[in-house]
Protein backbone atom coordinates (compact mmCIF):
# COMPACT_ATOMS: atom_id res chain seq x y z
CA UNK A 1 0.00 0.00 0.00
CA UNK A 2 1.33 3.43 -0.93
CA UNK A 3 2.00 5.78 1.96
CA UNK A 4 -0.28 8.68 2.83
CA UNK A 5 0.55 11.99 4.40
CA UNK A 6 -2.30 14.04 5.81
CA UNK A 7 -1.96 17.67 6.83
CA UNK A 8 -4.88 19.13 8.79
CA UNK A 9 -5.22 22.87 9.09
CA UNK A 10 -7.48 24.14 11.82
CA UNK A 11 -7.93 27.70 10.63
CA UNK A 12 -10.84 29.83 11.87
CA UNK A 13 -12.98 31.42 9.19
CA UNK A 14 -12.25 28.89 6.46
CA UNK A 15 -15.24 26.64 5.65
CA UNK A 16 -14.81 22.87 6.10
CA UNK A 17 -13.42 21.15 3.03
CA UNK A 18 -11.49 24.19 1.90
CA UNK A 19 -7.88 25.22 2.24
CA UNK A 20 -6.61 28.64 1.27
CA UNK A 21 -4.52 28.38 -1.88
CA UNK A 22 -1.79 30.34 -0.11
CA UNK A 23 -1.65 27.74 2.67
CA UNK A 24 -1.96 24.75 0.34
CA UNK A 25 0.81 26.05 -1.90
CA UNK A 26 3.14 26.86 0.95
CA UNK A 27 2.50 23.57 2.76
CA UNK A 28 2.82 21.45 -0.39
CA UNK A 29 6.06 22.96 -1.60
CA UNK A 30 7.49 23.09 1.93
CA UNK A 31 6.54 19.48 2.61
CA UNK A 32 8.09 18.35 -0.66
CA UNK A 33 11.27 20.30 -0.05
CA UNK A 34 11.57 19.06 3.54
CA UNK A 35 11.08 15.43 2.52
CA UNK A 36 13.52 15.77 -0.38
CA UNK A 37 16.11 17.32 1.96
CA UNK A 38 15.62 14.48 4.43
CA UNK A 39 15.99 11.93 1.63
CA UNK A 40 19.14 13.71 0.46
CA UNK A 41 20.52 13.45 3.98
CA UNK A 42 19.57 9.77 4.19
CA UNK A 43 21.46 9.28 0.95
CA UNK A 44 24.49 10.40 2.94
CA UNK A 45 24.82 13.98 1.68
CA UNK A 46 24.74 16.34 4.66
CA UNK A 47 26.05 19.32 2.62
CA UNK A 48 24.09 22.51 2.69
CA UNK A 49 23.82 22.33 -1.06
CA UNK A 50 21.29 22.40 -3.85
CA UNK A 51 18.93 19.46 -4.02
CA UNK A 52 20.36 16.55 -5.96
CA UNK A 53 18.39 15.03 -8.81
CA UNK A 54 18.52 11.69 -7.02
CA UNK A 55 16.76 13.14 -3.97
CA UNK A 56 14.11 14.85 -6.13
CA UNK A 57 13.51 11.63 -8.05
CA UNK A 58 12.92 9.71 -4.82
CA UNK A 59 10.44 12.28 -3.50
CA UNK A 60 7.54 10.97 -5.56
CA UNK A 61 4.51 12.34 -3.79
CA UNK A 62 1.25 13.72 -5.11
CA UNK A 63 -1.43 15.99 -3.70
CA UNK A 64 -4.50 13.84 -4.12
CA UNK A 65 -7.22 15.94 -2.60
CA UNK A 66 -8.76 18.11 0.03
CA UNK A 67 -10.97 16.29 2.51
CA UNK A 68 -14.57 17.49 2.56
CA UNK A 69 -14.96 17.31 6.33
CA UNK A 70 -12.34 19.83 7.33
CA UNK A 71 -9.25 21.66 6.13
CA UNK A 72 -7.27 18.54 5.27
CA UNK A 73 -4.70 18.12 2.51
CA UNK A 74 -4.16 14.53 1.37
CA UNK A 75 -0.88 13.41 -0.21
CA UNK A 76 0.07 9.97 -1.50
CA UNK A 77 3.43 8.55 -2.36
CA UNK A 78 3.69 7.37 -5.95
CA UNK A 79 5.62 4.26 -6.97
CA UNK A 80 9.28 5.10 -7.27
CA UNK A 81 11.32 3.44 -10.01
CA UNK A 82 14.02 1.05 -8.74
CA UNK A 83 12.88 1.31 -5.13
CA UNK A 84 11.44 -2.03 -4.04
CA UNK A 85 11.34 -1.45 -0.30
CA UNK A 86 9.63 1.20 1.79
CA UNK A 87 8.75 4.45 0.09
CA UNK A 88 11.55 7.02 0.59
CA UNK A 89 8.98 9.79 1.13
CA UNK A 90 7.30 7.76 3.88
CA UNK A 91 10.61 7.15 5.62
CA UNK A 92 11.37 10.87 5.42
CA UNK A 93 7.87 11.80 6.61
CA UNK A 94 8.14 9.49 9.62
CA UNK A 95 11.49 11.14 10.44
CA UNK A 96 9.89 14.57 10.10
CA UNK A 97 7.02 13.71 12.42
CA UNK A 98 9.14 11.87 14.99
CA UNK A 99 11.72 14.68 14.94
CA UNK A 100 9.05 17.28 15.69
CA UNK A 101 7.58 15.07 18.42
CA UNK A 102 11.04 14.63 19.88
CA UNK A 103 11.46 18.40 20.04
CA UNK A 104 8.05 18.83 21.68
CA UNK A 105 9.02 16.25 24.32
CA UNK A 106 12.59 17.33 24.97
CA UNK A 107 13.07 20.82 23.50
CA UNK A 108 16.09 19.53 21.62
CA UNK A 109 16.21 18.76 17.92
CA UNK A 110 17.43 15.29 16.92
CA UNK A 111 20.44 15.11 14.58
CA UNK A 112 18.35 13.53 11.82
CA UNK A 113 16.22 16.68 11.51
CA UNK A 114 18.79 19.32 10.54
CA UNK A 115 18.17 23.09 10.39
CA UNK A 116 17.93 23.07 6.60
CA UNK A 117 14.82 20.85 6.92
CA UNK A 118 13.39 22.50 10.01
CA UNK A 119 13.61 25.98 8.50
CA UNK A 120 11.78 24.92 5.36
CA UNK A 121 9.02 23.21 7.32
CA UNK A 122 8.77 26.20 9.63
CA UNK A 123 8.33 28.53 6.67
CA UNK A 124 5.83 26.13 5.09
CA UNK A 125 3.45 26.21 8.07
CA UNK A 126 3.93 29.91 8.82
CA UNK A 127 1.01 31.19 6.77
CA UNK A 128 -1.37 28.60 8.24
CA UNK A 129 -0.43 29.58 11.80
CA UNK A 130 -1.35 33.27 11.82
CA UNK A 131 -3.40 33.04 15.00
CA UNK A 132 -1.90 31.87 18.36
CA UNK A 133 -4.54 29.13 18.58
CA UNK A 134 -3.93 27.76 15.07
CA UNK A 135 -2.56 24.24 14.78
CA UNK A 136 -1.24 22.25 11.83
CA UNK A 137 -1.39 18.49 12.28
CA UNK A 138 0.74 16.10 10.22
CA UNK A 139 -0.10 12.40 9.99
CA UNK A 140 1.79 9.67 8.14
CA UNK A 141 0.51 6.19 7.33
CA UNK A 142 2.33 3.33 5.66
CA UNK A 143 1.53 -0.38 5.84
CA UNK A 144 -0.21 -0.19 9.20
CA UNK A 145 2.40 2.16 10.68
CA UNK A 146 1.09 5.54 11.74
CA UNK A 147 2.57 8.64 13.35
CA UNK A 148 1.38 12.18 13.89
CA UNK A 149 2.49 15.47 15.35
CA UNK A 150 1.03 18.92 15.91
CA UNK A 151 2.72 22.16 15.06
CA UNK A 152 1.53 25.22 16.96
CA UNK A 153 3.00 28.73 16.64
CA UNK A 154 5.56 27.99 19.35
CA UNK A 155 6.86 24.87 17.56
CA UNK A 156 6.77 26.82 14.29
CA UNK A 157 9.02 29.47 15.86
CA UNK A 158 11.44 26.76 16.96
CA UNK A 159 11.43 25.29 13.45
CA UNK A 160 12.29 28.67 11.99
CA UNK A 161 15.33 29.38 14.19
CA UNK A 162 18.17 29.81 11.70
CA UNK A 163 21.29 27.72 11.94
CA UNK A 164 24.02 29.43 13.95
CA UNK A 165 27.70 28.68 13.43
CA UNK A 166 30.22 28.76 16.26
CA UNK A 167 33.46 30.69 15.68
CA UNK A 168 35.55 27.69 16.72
CA UNK A 169 33.76 25.16 14.51
CA UNK A 170 35.55 24.65 11.15
CA UNK A 171 33.50 24.89 7.98
CA UNK A 172 34.14 23.86 4.38
CA UNK A 173 32.96 25.54 1.21
CA UNK A 174 33.14 24.31 -2.39
CA UNK A 175 32.13 26.69 -5.13
CA UNK A 176 33.20 29.10 -7.85
CA UNK A 177 35.35 32.11 -7.05
CA UNK A 178 33.35 35.09 -8.28
CA UNK A 179 35.14 38.10 -6.83
CA UNK A 180 38.70 38.93 -5.78
CA UNK A 181 39.53 41.96 -3.64
CA UNK A 182 43.27 42.61 -3.66
CA UNK A 183 43.11 45.64 -1.39
CA UNK A 184 41.35 43.77 1.42
CA UNK A 185 43.00 40.40 0.76
CA UNK A 186 39.66 38.71 0.39
CA UNK A 187 37.64 36.84 -2.20
CA UNK A 188 34.10 35.56 -2.64
CA UNK A 189 32.72 32.16 -3.54
CA UNK A 190 29.21 31.34 -4.72
CA UNK A 191 27.96 28.00 -3.46
CA UNK A 192 24.45 26.61 -3.19
CA UNK A 193 22.74 29.95 -3.79
CA UNK A 194 24.85 31.70 -1.15
CA UNK A 195 27.86 33.99 -1.37
CA UNK A 196 30.68 33.57 1.15
CA UNK A 197 33.49 36.03 1.80
CA UNK A 198 36.92 34.71 2.73
CA UNK A 199 39.61 36.73 4.47
CA UNK A 200 43.03 35.31 3.78
CA UNK A 201 46.73 35.88 4.43
CA UNK A 202 48.81 37.47 1.69
CA UNK A 203 50.40 34.20 0.53
CA UNK A 204 46.99 32.57 0.39
CA UNK A 205 45.65 35.48 -1.61
CA UNK A 206 48.49 35.12 -4.11
CA UNK A 207 47.59 31.48 -4.55
CA UNK A 208 44.00 32.43 -5.29
CA UNK A 209 45.06 35.21 -7.63
CA UNK A 210 47.57 33.16 -9.57
CA UNK A 211 46.14 29.64 -9.58
CA UNK A 212 42.45 29.64 -8.74
CA UNK A 213 41.05 32.87 -10.18
CA UNK A 214 37.42 32.23 -11.29
CA UNK A 215 37.89 28.51 -10.70
CA UNK A 216 35.97 26.14 -8.46
CA UNK A 217 37.76 25.97 -5.15
CA UNK A 218 37.65 24.11 -1.85
CA UNK A 219 38.25 26.31 1.18
CA UNK A 220 38.14 25.47 4.87
CA UNK A 221 38.30 27.92 7.73
CA UNK A 222 36.35 29.36 10.64
CA UNK A 223 33.17 31.49 10.62
CA UNK A 224 33.62 35.10 11.61
CA UNK A 225 29.87 35.51 12.23
CA UNK A 226 27.04 33.22 13.32
CA UNK A 227 25.65 33.02 9.78
CA UNK A 228 29.08 32.16 8.41
CA UNK A 229 28.85 34.87 5.78
CA UNK A 230 32.53 35.63 6.30
CA UNK A 231 35.11 32.92 6.86
CA UNK A 232 38.63 33.58 8.14
CA UNK A 233 41.59 31.69 9.67
CA UNK A 234 41.73 29.73 6.44
CA UNK A 235 43.42 26.36 6.89
CA UNK A 236 43.12 24.93 3.37
CA UNK A 237 42.67 26.36 -0.11
CA UNK A 238 42.88 24.25 -3.23
CA UNK A 239 41.16 23.55 -6.52
CA UNK A 240 37.93 21.59 -6.03
CA UNK A 241 37.98 18.09 -7.49
CA UNK A 242 35.28 17.09 -9.99
CA UNK A 243 33.85 14.76 -7.33
CA UNK A 244 33.27 17.60 -4.87
CA UNK A 245 29.90 19.26 -5.20
CA UNK A 246 29.26 22.93 -4.60
CA UNK A 247 28.03 23.51 -1.09
CA UNK A 248 28.79 24.47 2.46
CA UNK A 249 29.19 22.28 5.48
CA UNK A 250 30.45 21.81 8.99
CA UNK A 251 33.60 19.72 8.86
CA UNK A 252 32.52 17.92 12.05
CA UNK A 253 29.21 16.92 10.51
CA UNK A 254 30.52 15.91 7.11
CA UNK A 255 33.24 13.76 8.59
CA UNK A 256 31.36 12.40 11.61
CA UNK A 257 31.58 8.88 10.23
CA UNK A 258 35.37 9.10 9.94
CA UNK A 259 35.84 9.15 13.68
CA UNK A 260 34.21 5.76 14.22
CA UNK A 261 36.13 2.57 14.79
CA UNK A 262 34.23 0.91 11.94
CA UNK A 263 35.46 3.50 9.46
CA UNK A 264 39.00 3.65 10.82
CA UNK A 265 39.39 -0.10 10.57
CA UNK A 266 37.85 -0.18 7.10
CA UNK A 267 40.17 2.58 5.92
CA UNK A 268 43.25 0.78 7.25
CA UNK A 269 42.13 -2.35 5.45
CA UNK A 270 41.40 -0.43 2.24
CA UNK A 271 44.88 1.09 2.29
CA UNK A 272 46.30 -2.42 2.53
CA UNK A 273 44.17 -3.61 -0.39
CA UNK A 274 45.43 -0.72 -2.51
CA UNK A 275 48.92 -2.25 -2.30
CA UNK A 276 47.76 -5.33 -4.21
CA UNK A 277 49.09 -5.64 -7.77
CA UNK A 278 47.51 -7.20 -10.82
CA UNK A 279 47.26 -11.00 -10.46
CA UNK A 280 47.35 -10.62 -6.70
CA UNK A 281 45.21 -13.76 -6.19
CA UNK A 282 47.42 -15.78 -8.61
CA UNK A 283 44.35 -16.37 -10.79
CA UNK A 284 44.55 -13.20 -12.88
CA UNK A 285 42.67 -10.72 -10.66
CA UNK A 286 43.01 -7.00 -11.33
CA UNK A 287 44.44 -4.77 -8.64
CA UNK A 288 41.70 -2.94 -6.73
CA UNK A 289 40.99 0.39 -8.42
CA UNK A 290 41.54 3.54 -6.41
CA UNK A 291 38.30 5.10 -7.60
CA UNK A 292 36.23 2.10 -6.52
CA UNK A 293 38.00 1.78 -3.18
CA UNK A 294 37.74 5.48 -2.32
CA UNK A 295 34.12 5.55 -3.42
CA UNK A 296 33.46 2.59 -1.11
CA UNK A 297 35.18 4.38 1.77
CA UNK A 298 33.26 7.61 1.17
CA UNK A 299 30.01 5.69 0.95
CA UNK A 300 30.84 3.92 4.20
CA UNK A 301 31.73 7.20 5.91
CA UNK A 302 28.50 8.81 4.76
CA UNK A 303 26.38 5.78 5.63
CA UNK A 304 27.88 5.61 9.12
CA UNK A 305 27.07 9.32 9.49
CA UNK A 306 23.42 8.75 8.57
CA UNK A 307 23.18 5.89 11.04
CA UNK A 308 24.81 7.98 13.77
CA UNK A 309 22.11 10.62 13.22
CA UNK A 310 19.62 7.93 14.23
CA UNK A 311 21.67 6.67 17.18
CA UNK A 312 22.77 3.51 15.37
CA UNK A 313 26.41 2.45 15.44
CA UNK A 314 27.70 0.47 12.49
CA UNK A 315 29.86 -2.60 12.99
CA UNK A 316 33.11 -2.83 11.05
CA UNK A 317 32.61 -4.41 7.65
CA UNK A 318 35.03 -6.92 6.17
CA UNK A 319 36.51 -5.55 2.96
CA UNK A 320 37.22 -8.16 0.31
CA UNK A 321 38.97 -7.28 -2.93
CA UNK A 322 37.15 -8.48 -6.04
CA UNK A 323 38.77 -10.13 -9.01
CA UNK A 324 37.63 -7.44 -11.52
CA UNK A 325 39.29 -4.69 -9.45
CA UNK A 326 36.51 -3.58 -7.13
CA UNK A 327 35.82 -4.09 -3.46
CA UNK A 328 33.10 -5.80 -1.43
CA UNK A 329 31.86 -4.69 1.99
CA UNK A 330 30.52 -7.55 4.10
CA UNK A 331 28.51 -7.50 7.31
CA UNK A 332 27.12 -10.36 9.35
CA UNK A 333 24.76 -9.38 12.19
CA UNK A 334 22.83 -12.16 13.97
CA UNK A 335 21.02 -14.09 11.23
CA UNK A 336 21.46 -11.34 8.63
CA UNK A 337 24.27 -11.06 6.10
CA UNK A 338 24.94 -8.35 3.56
CA UNK A 339 27.46 -8.39 0.76
CA UNK A 340 27.66 -4.98 -0.87
CA UNK A 341 29.93 -5.06 -3.89
CA UNK A 342 31.26 -1.91 -5.49
CA UNK A 343 32.59 -2.98 -8.88
CA UNK A 344 33.37 0.60 -9.82
CA UNK A 345 32.67 4.10 -8.60
CA UNK A 346 28.93 4.73 -8.27
CA UNK A 347 27.74 1.14 -8.75
CA UNK A 348 26.46 -1.33 -6.17
CA UNK A 349 25.39 -4.95 -6.33
CA UNK A 350 24.28 -6.86 -3.30
CA UNK A 351 23.39 -10.16 -1.71
CA UNK A 352 21.17 -9.99 1.37
CA UNK A 353 20.68 -13.17 3.38
CA UNK A 354 18.36 -13.70 6.32
CA UNK A 355 18.37 -17.31 7.41
CA UNK A 356 17.31 -19.27 4.36
CA UNK A 357 16.04 -16.23 2.44
CA UNK A 358 18.39 -14.70 -0.13
CA UNK A 359 17.93 -11.68 -2.39
CA UNK A 360 20.51 -10.29 -4.78
CA UNK A 361 20.71 -7.70 -7.50
CA UNK A 362 21.90 -4.25 -8.49
CA UNK A 363 21.30 -1.50 -5.95
CA UNK A 364 20.93 2.26 -6.08
CA UNK A 365 22.68 4.34 -3.45
CA UNK A 366 19.35 4.65 -1.65
CA UNK A 367 18.85 0.87 -1.57
CA UNK A 368 22.46 0.35 -0.50
CA UNK A 369 21.89 2.72 2.43
CA UNK A 370 18.67 0.97 3.40
CA UNK A 371 20.29 -2.47 3.13
CA UNK A 372 23.03 -1.39 5.49
CA UNK A 373 20.44 -0.20 7.98
CA UNK A 374 18.57 -3.48 7.53
CA UNK A 375 21.58 -5.68 8.22
CA UNK A 376 22.40 -3.77 11.40
CA UNK A 377 18.90 -3.27 12.83
CA UNK A 378 16.64 -5.71 11.03
CA UNK A 379 14.34 -2.84 9.97
CA UNK A 380 12.46 -3.28 6.71
CA UNK A 381 14.40 -2.03 3.69
Amino acid sequence: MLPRIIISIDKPGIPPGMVLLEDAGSLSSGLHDSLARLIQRQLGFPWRANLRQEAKRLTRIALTGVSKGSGVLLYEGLPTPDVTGRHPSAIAAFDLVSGIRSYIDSHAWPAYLPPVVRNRMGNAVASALADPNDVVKIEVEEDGLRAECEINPSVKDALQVPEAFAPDEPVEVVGKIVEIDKRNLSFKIEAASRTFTFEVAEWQFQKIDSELRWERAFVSGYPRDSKSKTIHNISDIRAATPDEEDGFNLTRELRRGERTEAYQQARARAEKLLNLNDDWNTYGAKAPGKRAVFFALHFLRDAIGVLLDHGISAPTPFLAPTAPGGVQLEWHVSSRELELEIPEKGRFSFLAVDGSNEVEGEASRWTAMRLLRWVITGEAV
Partner: protein
Amino acid sequence: MTEFAGVDNIPDDIADTEVLNRRIHPDFVRPDGSVSSQAFTDTELSVDRAMYWDVAETLRGYNGYGVASIVASFARGLQQEVVADKLLLNPAHALVKGKKSKSIARALARSAIWEVALGGGLS
Protein backbone atom coordinates in the same frame (compact mmCIF):
# COMPACT_ATOMS: atom_id res chain seq x y z
CA MET B 1 42.91 -34.85 3.42
CA THR B 2 42.13 -36.71 0.20
CA GLU B 3 43.94 -39.97 -0.61
CA PHE B 4 46.56 -39.16 -3.21
CA ALA B 5 46.56 -41.24 -6.44
CA GLY B 6 49.40 -39.50 -8.34
CA VAL B 7 49.44 -37.82 -11.72
CA ASP B 8 49.68 -40.88 -13.98
CA ASN B 9 46.62 -41.73 -16.04
CA ILE B 10 44.38 -39.02 -14.67
CA PRO B 11 40.88 -39.61 -16.05
CA ASP B 12 39.17 -36.84 -17.97
CA ASP B 13 35.90 -37.46 -16.19
CA ILE B 14 35.65 -35.89 -12.79
CA ALA B 15 33.71 -37.98 -10.32
CA ASP B 16 31.03 -36.34 -8.18
CA THR B 17 32.98 -37.31 -5.10
CA GLU B 18 36.20 -35.62 -6.16
CA VAL B 19 37.64 -32.94 -3.95
CA LEU B 20 38.81 -29.79 -5.71
CA ASN B 21 41.45 -27.55 -4.16
CA ARG B 22 41.58 -23.80 -4.60
CA ARG B 23 44.39 -21.55 -3.44
CA ILE B 24 43.07 -18.81 -1.16
CA HIS B 25 44.74 -15.41 -0.94
CA PRO B 26 44.94 -14.12 2.66
CA ASP B 27 42.87 -11.04 1.75
CA PHE B 28 39.90 -13.31 1.09
CA VAL B 29 39.89 -14.60 4.65
CA ARG B 30 37.68 -12.91 7.22
CA PRO B 31 38.76 -12.34 10.81
CA ASP B 32 36.73 -15.39 11.90
CA GLY B 33 38.65 -17.60 9.47
CA SER B 34 35.84 -18.04 6.96
CA VAL B 35 36.38 -17.35 3.27
CA SER B 36 34.72 -14.50 1.40
CA SER B 37 32.47 -15.39 -1.50
CA GLN B 38 34.79 -13.27 -3.63
CA ALA B 39 37.26 -16.16 -3.67
CA PHE B 40 34.77 -18.16 -5.76
CA THR B 41 33.44 -15.73 -8.36
CA ASP B 42 35.48 -16.59 -11.46
CA THR B 43 33.33 -17.81 -14.33
CA GLU B 44 36.07 -20.34 -15.00
CA LEU B 45 37.18 -21.13 -11.45
CA SER B 46 40.60 -22.73 -11.48
CA VAL B 47 41.02 -25.73 -9.14
CA ASP B 48 43.33 -28.71 -8.64
CA ARG B 49 41.95 -32.25 -8.38
CA ALA B 50 43.05 -33.25 -4.90
CA MET B 51 43.19 -36.97 -5.67
CA TYR B 52 45.87 -36.42 -8.28
CA TRP B 53 47.70 -33.28 -7.17
CA ASP B 54 49.27 -32.94 -3.79
CA VAL B 55 48.05 -29.95 -1.90
CA ALA B 56 51.68 -28.99 -1.31
CA GLU B 57 52.00 -28.55 -5.07
CA THR B 58 48.97 -26.24 -5.11
CA LEU B 59 50.73 -24.11 -2.53
CA ARG B 60 54.25 -24.34 -3.93
CA GLY B 61 55.68 -20.85 -4.30
CA TYR B 62 52.75 -19.19 -2.54
CA ASN B 63 53.81 -18.66 1.03
CA GLY B 64 51.12 -17.22 3.23
CA TYR B 65 48.26 -18.56 1.12
CA GLY B 66 45.85 -21.28 2.22
CA VAL B 67 44.05 -24.02 0.31
CA ALA B 68 40.34 -24.64 0.60
CA SER B 69 38.46 -27.47 -1.00
CA ILE B 70 35.02 -27.93 -2.48
CA VAL B 71 33.37 -31.11 -3.73
CA ALA B 72 32.51 -31.59 -7.41
CA SER B 73 28.95 -32.74 -6.74
CA PHE B 74 28.21 -29.64 -4.68
CA ALA B 75 29.37 -27.37 -7.49
CA ARG B 76 27.34 -29.35 -10.01
CA GLY B 77 24.31 -28.95 -7.78
CA LEU B 78 24.72 -25.21 -8.28
CA GLN B 79 24.46 -25.61 -12.07
CA GLN B 80 28.22 -25.44 -12.50
CA GLU B 81 30.12 -27.56 -14.97
CA VAL B 82 33.16 -29.30 -13.50
CA VAL B 83 35.61 -30.27 -16.23
CA ALA B 84 39.21 -31.39 -16.52
CA ASP B 85 41.55 -28.77 -17.95
CA LYS B 86 44.92 -30.45 -18.04
CA LEU B 87 47.89 -28.14 -18.23
CA LEU B 88 51.39 -29.04 -19.27
CA LEU B 89 52.74 -28.52 -15.78
CA ASN B 90 49.55 -29.44 -13.94
CA PRO B 91 47.67 -32.38 -15.44
CA ALA B 92 45.30 -32.38 -12.46
CA HIS B 93 44.03 -28.91 -13.24
CA ALA B 94 40.26 -28.48 -13.60
CA LEU B 95 37.70 -25.74 -14.02
CA VAL B 96 34.40 -25.06 -12.29
CA LYS B 97 32.66 -23.37 -15.21
CA GLY B 98 29.54 -21.27 -15.11
CA LYS B 99 28.23 -17.85 -14.24
CA LYS B 100 28.42 -17.41 -10.51
CA SER B 101 25.74 -15.25 -9.02
CA LYS B 102 26.52 -13.81 -5.62
CA SER B 103 24.35 -16.53 -4.12
CA ILE B 104 26.28 -19.30 -5.87
CA ALA B 105 29.65 -17.80 -4.94
CA ARG B 106 28.53 -17.57 -1.32
CA ALA B 107 27.32 -21.18 -1.36
CA LEU B 108 30.66 -22.36 -2.73
CA ALA B 109 32.54 -20.32 -0.11
CA ARG B 110 30.39 -21.67 2.71
CA SER B 111 30.92 -25.25 1.53
CA ALA B 112 34.70 -24.81 1.35
CA ILE B 113 36.82 -26.68 3.87
CA TRP B 114 40.31 -25.60 4.78
CA GLU B 115 42.85 -28.17 3.57
CA VAL B 116 45.74 -25.93 4.50
CA ALA B 117 45.07 -23.03 6.80
CA LEU B 118 46.55 -19.64 6.04
CA GLY B 119 50.25 -19.60 6.70
CA GLY B 120 50.96 -23.00 5.18
CA GLY B 121 50.58 -25.50 8.03
CA LEU B 122 49.10 -28.71 6.65
CA SER B 123 45.99 -29.68 8.59
